[in-house]
């Protein structure tokens, strides 16, 4: 394998990478192409069979004990952690039992969601990024590296009430991910660990396909396609390339940054 960046022999953990058609899955493949040894941490064990080149660890990333076990296992098998990509998340339908079920219908806003919805969604999207970053940090600090978080355009502009397959707590959690990015950038900068974030707009992941299957024509979770100046949704590969670039030396002078990738639908 021809290696282009100084990523060879490095170990990356990607959470939420087991589902085909997901951003995490494409990131795991992209980092593998760069020569990284990639660890996939996910609840979706059904996907592990497709990930033969990867060390797959079943992990509920919203559980700090499980996260610590995953990190310990990674270090015992791979001796180091260079990159952490927190790609786990979702606007709802993110518990074990939801993994294979069709997404629930309707919109769960802040005024009609339950405390359980709130805790589940914040747990998967925000707590998970903190637990994984905190547990990986001592290992990242040893030689430097990068953390990349995946946020959402929902953190910038909110989600229009009524949007199918989405929720209010998701917008709140993803805004938290942006603040977490900045705070970690300050705490980890002196150790040569960069922390950045990608905020995708609507992306043609497996999840989107499910939502589109019961949405009206030309309607997407954020409203109408007409709201995207580029006239299309993003591809999983575009977002994954951006995440990979935030791991490599191409972004060695960037930290604490959020890169919005939304087809010009919202300029922050």
């Amino acid at each position, binding site marked *: 394998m021809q290696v282009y960046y100084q990523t060879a022999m490095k170990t990356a953990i990607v959470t939420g990478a087991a589902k085909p058609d997901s951003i995490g899955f494409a990131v795991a493949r992209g980092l593998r192409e760069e020569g990284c040894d990639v660890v996939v941490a996910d609840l979706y064990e059904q996907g592990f069979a497709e990930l033969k080149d990867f060390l797959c660890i079943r992990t509920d990333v919203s559980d700090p004990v499980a996260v610590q076990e995953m990190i310990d296992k990674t270090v015992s098998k791979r001796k180091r952690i260079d990159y952490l990509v927190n790609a786990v998340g979702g606007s709802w339908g993110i518990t074990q039992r939801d993994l294979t079920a069709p997404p629930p219908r309707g919109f769960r806003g802040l005024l009609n969601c339950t405390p359980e919805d709130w805790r589940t969604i914040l747990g998967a999207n925000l707590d998970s990024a903190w637990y994984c970053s905190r547990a990986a940090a001592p290992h990242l600090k040893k030689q430097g590296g990068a953390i990349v978080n995946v946020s959402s355009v929902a953190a910038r502009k909110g989600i229009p009430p009524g949007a199918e397959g989405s929720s209010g707590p998701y917008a709140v959690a993803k805004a938290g991910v942006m603040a977490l990015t900045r705070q970690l*950038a300050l705490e980890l900068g002196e150790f040569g660990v*960069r922390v950045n974030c990608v905020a995708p707009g609507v992306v043609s992941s497996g999840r989107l396909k499910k939502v589109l299957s019961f949405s009206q024509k030309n309607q997407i979770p954020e409203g109408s396609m007409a709201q995207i100046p580029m006239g299309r949704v993003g591809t999983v590969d575009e*977002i994954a390339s951006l995440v*990979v670039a935030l791991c490599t030396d191409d972004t060695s002078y*960037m930290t604490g940054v959020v890169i919005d990738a939304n087809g010009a639908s919202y*300029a922050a």
Partner: protein
Amino acid sequence: MPLKGLKGRKALVTGAASGIGHAVAARLRNEGVEVFATDIHQTGKLIVCDLTDQGEVEDLAGKIPAIDFLVNVAGGPVAPTRKNTLPSLPKNSLVLESIKDVEWHAVIAANLTSAFLVCREFAPKMKARKFGRIVNFASIAARRGSSRVGVHYAAAKGGIIGLTKTLALELGPHNITVNAIAPGYIKTERIAKAAWGHDSPAAEQAFIASLPLKRAGKPDDVAAVVAMLCSEAGGYVSGATLDVNGGWYFGP
């Protein structure tokens, strides 16, 4: 793996004689991009062009083939002229009262009008080809303000961000992305000479130590982000301003 989507493309890089523009041209060439480079003065194979002059920008378009990437780097806190093509930067802060009318107009022209004229010349050709990537240069001075470079430079670079967002909306339907990069303390030769913004080497060291990444930036650091935006990784990024500043300031 090399960045995807760069090899075989054509790019125009302005302000390419030195500093960040020079690094951008070199990086894109390394990625297999055919680069047309311009500056206000002759060095090597650069095409000489005063980008504040609409006629010269038109002439420039006549000299090069249709391009895929447009990187508008030309600019700086002190406007160049044909006689003084790389003017030294002042050692002290530029305070409001010290800025003359002529300097205001020259700095706005060099940093903002130039980008407008070049975009207006080249965007229609990108539209016709249904592909394009435009990267403009803003500055930390527009993001957080600056106590050194003067209001004219900060205002011009703020203008670049507005121009970038608006062009992203206008050109998005034509499959053209438009983004800006806002560099922080990037130690180009010119900035190193002026110890830009710092009264003493000790003051510079203290400033650098205050940055989360504990170092000044290099032109190559910025050039790499340009390459990233032109590659597959930038395919769905448009209207954005990317801070490349070592954690100095986080943007909105």
